[in-house]
C-alpha cells in the first residue's frame, strides 16, 4: 500500500523546522515505525527517531501522530491509509526536541529518579527467610508496574505544560508503584515528599495521561491513589488535600458542596481574606452562595451513615480505587456509538499541536 506521511523535521544546527511530506510503498501490516524505517532506508537517511524492541516493551518510540502521543510500533497504518488520511508526525510535547522526532528525556529521567524508584525494605541485613508477596498484595500495584517509561503520558500533560517542574504522571505513577508495594517501608516518607509544590496536588485532572498511556497504567488513577493514601496517613498539610477533604466534610454534613467555605478551608483564613476583593466582585453576581442557611440534601443522614460504614470496612486509601479496577478493565465497548452524522465540516484553524523545537 502507498503510505503518505508529513513529518515535522527539526535541524538543531540551523534551528530550521519544516514540515516534509513522504510517500512510501509499505506492506499492509506496516506500523508507523515500519514506515519510518522505510523512509530512513530508502528516502532520507538523515531522519532521526528512537526505536529498539518494535513490540511495545522498550518504550523508545514515543512520538506524536496528529498531536496525540503514541508508540510508533503500536499504530497500524492500514486503517489510516484506507481513510485517505495523511497523518502529521511530530516529536512528543513537554520535552525539548533534540532533532526531528528525538526529544531530550533528561528532565523526564530526573523526575523518575526523584521519586526514588527502588524498594526500601526498611532493614539493613537481608532476612534469612524469603519475603513472599501474595497475589492480592501485588494487585494493588499491578497497573503501575506495567509502565515502560515511554513518556507518552507526559507529552500532553496540561499541568506540566503550565508548570514544567510538576513531577508529572509517569514519575508519580512510579511513586505509587513503591508506596503501594507491600514490601516497602518508606511510604510515609515517600508520601511526604510527593505532597507539596510540584507534587500530586498539582495534577489538574485533565486525564490526558490515562488517554495516552499505551500500556493501561492510567497514571491519573495512580495520582488519586497517592492522594487517598496521603489522606489516610493524615498527610494533609497540602492545600490540595485540604480541598479534597472539604468535599468529604460537605457530603456528610449537608450532602452538597459547601462552596463558599471551600476557599478558607483550602487556603486558610489569612489567604482567604486576601481574596476578599475578588470574592466581593463574584458576590455581586450571586456567585458566592451564602453559607447560611446551608443547602441541605433530603435524607442526608443516609450519606453520613454511609461514610461511617465505609470507614469501618477498611477499604480506605488506595484500596478504594484498586477495588474498582477489575470492573473498569472489563469495559469492552462504549454503548454510545458516537456516530458523526451531525458533525459539521470544520476547517481546522491550525495544524495539529506540535512539540516545541
Amino acid at each position: 500500500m502507498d503510505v503518505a506521511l508529513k513529518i515535522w523535521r527539526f535541524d538543531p544546527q540551523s534551528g530550521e523546522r519544516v514540515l516534509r511530506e513522504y510517500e512510501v510503498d509499505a506492506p499492509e501490516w506496516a506500523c508507523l515505525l515500519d514506515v519510518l524505517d522505510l523512509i530512513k532506508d530508502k528516502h532520507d537517511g538523515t531522519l532521526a527517531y528512537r526505536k529498539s524492541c518494535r513490540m511495545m516493551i522498550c518504550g523508545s518510540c514515543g512520538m506524536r501522530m496528529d498531536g496525540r502521543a503514541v508508540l510508533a510500533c503500536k499504530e497500524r497504518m492500514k486503517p489510516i491509509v484506507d481513510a485517505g488520511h495523511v497523518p502529521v508526525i511530530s516529536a512528543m510535547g513537554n520535552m525539548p526536541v533534540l532533532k526531528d522526532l528525538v526529544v531530550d528525556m533528561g528532565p523526564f529521567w530526573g523526575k523518575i529518579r526523584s521519586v526514588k524508584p527502588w524498594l526500601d525494605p526498611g532493614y539493613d541485613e537481608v532476612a534469612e527467610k524469603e519475603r513472599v508477596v501474595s497475589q492480592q498484595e501485588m494487585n494493588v500495584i499491578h497497573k503501575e508496574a506495567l509502565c515502560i517509561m515511554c513518556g507518552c503520558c507526559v507529552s500532553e500533560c496540561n499541568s506540566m505544560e503550565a508548570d514544567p517542574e510538576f513531577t508529572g504522571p509517569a514519575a508519580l505513577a512510579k511513586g505509587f508503584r513503591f508506596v503501594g508495594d507491600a514490601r516497602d517501608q518508606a511510604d510515609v516518607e515517600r508520601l511526604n515528599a510527593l505532597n507539596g509544590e510540584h507534587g500530586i496536588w498539582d495534577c489538574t485532572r485533565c486525564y490526558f495521561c490515562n488517554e495516552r498511556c499505551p500500556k493501561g497504567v492510567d497514571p491519573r488513577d495512580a495520582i488519586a491513589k497517592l492522594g487517598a493514601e496521603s489522606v489516610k496517613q493524615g498527610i494533609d498539610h497540602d492545600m490540595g488535600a485540604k480541598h479534597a477533604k472539604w468535599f468529604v466534610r460537605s457530603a456528610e454534613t449537608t450532602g452538597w458542596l459547601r462552596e463558599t467555605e471551600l476557599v478558607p478551608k483550602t487556603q486558610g483564613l489569612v489567604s482567604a481574606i486576601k481574596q476578599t476583593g475578588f470574592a466581593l466582585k463574584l458576590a455581586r453576581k450571586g456567585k458566592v452562595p451564602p453559607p447560611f442557611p446551608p443547602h441541605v440534601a433530603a435524607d442526608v443522614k443516609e450519606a453520613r451513615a454511609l461514610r461511617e460504614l465505609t470507614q469501618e470496612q477498611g477499604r480506605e486509601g488506595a484500596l478504594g480505587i484498586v477495588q474498582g479496577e477489575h470492573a473498569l478493565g472489563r469495559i469492552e465497548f462504549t454503548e454510545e456509538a458516537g456516530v458523526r452524522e451531525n458533525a459539521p465540516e470544520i476547517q481546522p484553524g491550525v495544524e495539529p499541536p506540535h512539540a516545541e523545537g
Partner: protein
Amino acid sequence: MNRVAYYTGCLAALSAKELNSATKALAPKLGLELVELESVTCCGAGDIHEAEPDYYLHLNARILAYAEATGCETLMTICNVCTLNLRQANWQLKNDQELRARVNKNLKTVGVPAYSGEVEVRHLLWLIAEGDGYEQLKTAAHKGLKGLKVAPFYGCQILRPSKILGFEDPDRPWSLEAIIQACGGEPIDYPAKIKCCGFPIIQAREEVALSELIQPIEQAVEAGADAMVTPCPLCHLSLDAWQLKLRKSTGKDFAMPILHLSQLIGVAAGLEESELKFKRHVVSVDPVTQKLEV
C-alpha cells in the same frame, strides 16, 4: 417526551443557578421531561474519589439507586465532572457483581434502595447531539443565532478518559460544533478546545491553573469568537469568573462572554432573561445579546 432523571449537581444549585434555570426552561422544548431527584448528594467532584474513594463509590451508588427508583432509564447530567464520576462508579457497579453486592448491602443498611445497574448516565450534550434529541433541537432553535461566532470549549471530563465516557473521539470531538451549527451559529475552531481550564486546582495552585485557563480564552479571541460555550459549570466558573484574575495578572481584558450549553440553545429557542439569567455572569454577555437583539 423522553422522561429522564435529572441530576443538577452542586454548582447548578449554588453559584451557577442560571444553568439550572435555563436547563429546566429549555428541557420541554427539547422533548425532555426532567424528573428531579430529591435526596441525592454531591458526586464528590473527583475530590472524594481522591480523599476517600470507597465513600465516593457509595455516594455515587446512592445517586444511581435513587435515579433507578424513578423508573427512568437515563440519568441526565449537566456537568462534566458529575458525568465522569457517575459513569465511572456506574461501570464499577455494573461490571463487578461482588462489588455491587457489597455496596448494595451498605445501601440497604442505611435505608437506600438497592441499585441493579440498569441506569445509563448521559450528559445533556449527548442527548441532543444526535438522534431524536438532535431533531428536536433543530425545531426548538427556531430563533437562530444569526451566525454568531461561537468557540466550543469541551473541557476534560466529558472527553477523557474515553474508555469511561466514550461518546466521541476525544481528540476530534464534534458534538458542540453540531449543536452550534444547528442553532444557527458558526463554530470556531481552535486547538485548546479540548484542554483543561485549570478549575480543579484553582484554589490550591492558582498560578498553574491560570496559565492553563488563559490558553483557550486567548485562542478563542484570536480566532474571532463572539462567545464561548461550555457543557460544564466548573469550566464556566473558571472561564467566566477567573477571567477577572487574568485581567489582573496579564493586563489583558479579554471580555469574552462565556455561555452555558443550555443558555446558548436557550437563546436560539427564545428563552427569556428571567430563565437565562445572563445578569449572573461576571463577564458581560451584552455584546452577544445586542448582536442577537434579544
